[in-house]
């Protein structure tokens, strides 16, 4: 007989300058307990059912370099590849993919298919509140980024039916997020998008935040 699923832990990555403060405050507001991951050894506490959150600001290359410096690339990649739940925000979301034109020599975690390109907009970064085209929620979320995955994109991404889309400019569709999977996240900042952002973050983390069922 299987016991009901209990909640797993939320672990939040802290690389020293990656927006931990805002995400931590959002989790506290949502009464979601969390632990901070700073080094490889901290990941030993993760187990199936836990969620690893990758917040992030700054460039793709600088983010991946900080992951490398703390010997976190392989363990995070392995955690995500073998069923672990990972949720990325902004450049933390970008790091889940294969790479970015922003930093051509840096490899991403490659847990999701796709590469980021410089968005064809007259003004960059694209900053502001935008609605999600294909989401039930009508409210807007806060975006600030210069590189995105333009849609339609690769076949692998097109076949993904849990992607969120937004339009920074007319006739330009950009990947806003990937939901419903073990590995996903959002390009926007739910922790800086007011109450609707907190509600979205709460929903996404709780959806992933289940321990594996235990047999009696």
């Amino acid at each position: 007989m299987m016991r009901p699923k209990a909640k797993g832990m939320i672990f939040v990555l802290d690389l020293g300058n990656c927006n931990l403060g805002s995400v931590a405050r959002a989790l506290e507001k949502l009464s979601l307990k969390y632990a901070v991951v700073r080094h490889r050894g901290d990941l030993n506490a993760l187990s199936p059912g836990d969620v690893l959150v990758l917040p992030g600001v700054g460039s793709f290359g600088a983010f991946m370099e900080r992951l490398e410096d703390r010997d976190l690339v392989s363990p995070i990649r392995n955690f995500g590849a073998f069923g672990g739940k990972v949720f990325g925000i902004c450049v933390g979301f970008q790091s889940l993919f294969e790479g970015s034109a922003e930093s051509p020599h840096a490899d991403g975690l490659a847990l999701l298919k796709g590469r980021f390109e410089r968005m064809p907009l007259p003004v960059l970064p694209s900053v502001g509140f935008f609605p999600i085209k294909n989401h039930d929620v009508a409210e807007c979320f806060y975006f600030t980024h210069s590189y995105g995955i333009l849609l339609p994109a690769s076949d692998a991404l097109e076949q993904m039916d849990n992607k969120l889309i937004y339009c920074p400019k007319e006739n330009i569709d950009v990947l806003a997020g990937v939901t419903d999977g073990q590995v996903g996240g959002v390009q926007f900042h739910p922790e800086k998008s007011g109450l609707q952002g907190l509600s979205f973050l709460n929903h996404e983390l709780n959806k992933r935040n289940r321990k594996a069922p235990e047999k009696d």
Partner: protein
Amino acid sequence: MRVIGKIELKTDLVVKGRRFEGVRPVGSFEDVLEHYLNCGVREFLFQDVVASLYDRAISLQLVKVGVCRSFYPVGVGGGIRTVSDAARLFDLGVERVYVNSGLAANSQLAREIVNIYGSQAVGVAIDYLEAQGKIKAYYNHGRDAHEMKIDQLIDLCVSSRVGEILITNIAHDGHPEKLPCPSIFKLFSSVGIPIIFGGGIVPERDGAPLKNRFPDISGVAVCSHFLQSFNDEA
């Protein structure tokens, strides 16, 4: 168009002057912040108008209150002279720092912060006056004129890869009855960086005309307009 609610501070008090002079207390930070949120503001700029004058930093306690209360992006300006000053603010959850006076002492300040925290984290505030067809940029909240010419300052913004430029017309500051004079925009055509325009702005009146005249404008910074309704309700 983005509407950024600007709150000017003198130590722990919210203040407002006219043409960057004669600042008077408005009310408590918490009350003004709540009023801005009730007005629908979703982006904030907290600016300490005397921090550079007194060579100190903005109150971190106030910034923390603002970040924790709003769960919206918060920009901070005033007294940011080093990367460490910026780091302390980012640790609190600040979205973006705006530098101006710090550039007078170290023209590489914006670039140094961008190199660590990324373009989206740094803005340059350009406060200007126009006289006899010439535009001059100022720092120390309008007290001192930059040695750099305005076009050199703009070039510095581009070469430093900052993520935003906040332009404030000092002559219209505190005068929401005045219509904006966007003649300065011709200097920013093809810069390719988000431009925020401030100085007596009324969003409902000025937003669309500014956007029509200058499609690349990203938003407006608004202070007096929101404080008028705050005073009306008090």
